[in-house]
């Protein structure tokens, strides 16, 4: 669990930097939205989807873990949801994540999406048209491999 926690934290941190550099005004990238309050757009949240796949590389000491990652972007309208979704997919495709130890900041692992075809994106409309929580949600998913040193 601690391992996933550090991976998620590192991914969220680097995603925030990436989005900010592209002009997205997001106050922070959340690590799963758990509050009992409703989410306020614009917001971005990172989820690790349940998976139990781990691959041992024969003859090496490295362990490779497979992570399915979902990034939700809650935006106020459809075009911005689509737009940020495009940038998030680019981020998934081209940005290797350096997983850092939260306490020591030491590099622990690399987290990379090798399989471009695993990246998908869908923009979800507000489910209840009249709801107070009126925003569009872009859901981007990708499969990452995490290689620990």
């Amino acid at each position, binding site marked *: 669990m601690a391992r996933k926690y550090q991976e998620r934290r590192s991914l969220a941190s680097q995603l925030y930097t990436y989005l900010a550099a592209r002009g997205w005004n997001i106050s922070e990238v959340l690590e799963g939205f758990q509050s*009992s309050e*409703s989410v306020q757009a614009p917001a971005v949240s990172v989820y690790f989807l349940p998976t*139990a796949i781990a691959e041992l590389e024969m003859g090496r000491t490295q362990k490779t873990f497979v992570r399915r990652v979902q990034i939700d972007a809650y935006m106020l309208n459809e075009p911005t949801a689509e737009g940020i979704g495009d940038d998030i997919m680019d981020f998934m495709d081209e940005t290797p994540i350096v997983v850092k130890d939260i306490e020591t900041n030491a590099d622990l692992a690399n987290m990379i999406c090798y399989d471009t075809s695993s990246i998908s994106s869908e923009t979800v409309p507000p489910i209840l048209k009249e*709801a107070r929580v009126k925003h569009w949600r872009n859901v981007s998913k990708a499969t990452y491999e995490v290689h620990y040193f």
Partner: protein
Amino acid sequence: MVTVRVELDQSATYAMIDTFTENLQAAEQFAINQIKDRIRYEVFGTVVYALGARAGEGFPRVYREHLSNFMRLNVPINAYASGDGIISINYDFNSLGDYTDLELGAHHQALIAIDKGSLATTSKGGLKYIIHPPVVNLPYQGEPLENDSDKRQDFWERVIVDRELDYAPGLRRGASEWTIEELLGGNVPTFEDVAAARVFEAWIPAGVAPEWLWLENGFTESEPRIYPVDFTQTLENITYCVADKIYEEAIIGLVRLAEAAGGAIGVGSKGRPYERASGQFAPYRQEINTADISECLGSI
């Protein structure tokens, strides 16, 4: 459109059985039928129940039962061999419904707006009682609603998380407002009531099961949250595993049976092996039917 597509490359197996081609297509079809049956009757239900439980309390049992049954009955599974050792299996979720269908289950028991001008007033100018104010009965058909979205969200959150309200989101009654209990005759619906109403009053009559979208993408905005569980990717992984195991038993097992018998085994027109000498069926089919896929299902 979301399609689950699995391609099983069995070209190596084909090369192995080059010399054993008698009625191979029939045997292959038999394996494919097995794959389709077991995906339909075992994989769908197992995946929906397992992932539904992981999705949290926002995806209650009534959704899981409905989605599982609906998929078993309504999702067409296409599986075919392309003749070069590639087995393709695909099914799509078009028949399950989309986000428009989710809205059929919205606003259960919400107050429908009424024309205030048509109501009699008291001598002091307040509106008279409405004994049975009109409420939305599912499926929701787009009726205009009495309360604004903020009030209805507050009411919904009270239902879900038992949050206290500062006011009763009801119709005006003179100087005061109706309480929720007054409005609904004391029967404030629980979340379980709402979920059941969505399934039985909205989605089943409409012939859809749009709750699959909540398993696929989650509902992470507000309570009750449904945690995303990667529904289609998991189905794809399990389908691949199951297809691989069944094919292994159906075809490779058949070849081994024939090899062990020194070529004394033939394959009937329906893919069933038989002993050439006696003409009797070899005891094989039962093994295919019971191919152990628990390892695949256990990986969820």
